[in-house]
């Protein structure tokens, strides 16, 4: 039972990734997830059972994040040359994301949900403790960070390109800083160099979001 859902997940995602075209890059993740969720409903599998069955996949998120050190070291000279701009870009992106999330939460009447949304720009292992510190709901905080990653990974490269921003360093910082892990995965799919700076931007954005959000903890 466990092995079946694990295998279905790997095969479905792998198949979708193989079928990807340049215009559809980034869609394998949300499409696989929606299809699998449909499958779980059809077969009456509770979400908790699916999470347990696919624990082996979630487990590798940790080592994979550590592994971002490899492209980072390889592309470090190019990143270091433009280090101040990377820092300012990450700070600006994190501040705008967090500030607009606060503003829109109030404006669009999210009520207490703001406590779960505010740290959404940070990578999940940073965002969840912050959500808890704000008095929000961790499950909703996790959804907010996943949505953040999906939105950034789907609109990022094409949207930035349309703005005239093709520079891989700029695209990498934008993807990592604004949409954390899933954005970094998308950047890695574009090029290892873009992924390297995205991983770094993700880590730095996590620190920036922490500094901005912690004063509101209760």
């Amino acid at each position: 039972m466990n092995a079946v859902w694990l295998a279905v997940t790997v095969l479905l995602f792998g198949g979708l990734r193989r079928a990807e075209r340049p215009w559809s890059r980034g869609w394998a993740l949300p499409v696989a997830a929606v299809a699998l969720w449909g499958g779980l409903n059809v077969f009456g599998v509770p979400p908790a059972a699916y999470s347990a069955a696919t624990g082996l996949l979630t487990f590798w998120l940790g080592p994979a994040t550590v592994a971002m050190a490899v492209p980072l070291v390889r592309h470090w000279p190019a990143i270091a040359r433009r280090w101040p701009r990377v820092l300012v870009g990450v700070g600006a992106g994190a501040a705008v994301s967090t500030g607009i999330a606060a503003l829109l939460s109030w404006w669009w009447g999210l009520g207490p949900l703001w406590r779960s949304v505010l740290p959404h720009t940070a990578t999940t292992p940073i965002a969840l403790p912050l959500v808890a510190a704000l008095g929000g709901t961790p499950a909703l905080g996790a959804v907010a960070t996943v949505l953040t990653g999906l939105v950034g990974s789907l609109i990022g490269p094409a949207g930035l390109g349309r703005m005239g921003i093709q520079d891989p360093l700029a695209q990498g910082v934008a993807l990592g800083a604004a949409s954390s892990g899933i954005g970094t995965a998308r950047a890695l799919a574009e090029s290892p160099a873009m992924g390297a700076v995205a991983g770094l931007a993700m880590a730095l954005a996590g620190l920036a979001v922490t500094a901005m959000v912690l004063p509101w903890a209760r």
Partner: protein
Amino acid sequence: MRAAAVLLGFEALGYVLSRLLPWPVPDTVLGMVLLAVALNRGWIPLSWVQAGADFLLRWLALFFVPLVVAGIPVLTALGGRAAAFVAVVAVSTAAGLFTAGWVVAGGRENVAPNRTARDAEEPLGGAGR
């Protein structure tokens, strides 16, 4: 195998360090920084981890599938508030993303369609020098 051992070892090191720090910095991010320093200083040869790291990073999006699946019922449980929740996250993410990209690309003087072809050919070089 050796790559997996090194990566898990640095995740564990990061975990120990994260317990000692007063802020919520995750073990994996600390592990990434520690491993980057170790590789840069040559304490650990790149060849030990390179192939394994490349493999994991190639499949990074796969490891997120269970998290996205788990999020769907939580989102639908929000009912009428789900649309506003998604809208807040989507709009603020887009704003932060384009701001960060615009700032790094060099602001107004460098962001122009006629510069882009050359920048794209030059990995991580391009504008700003």
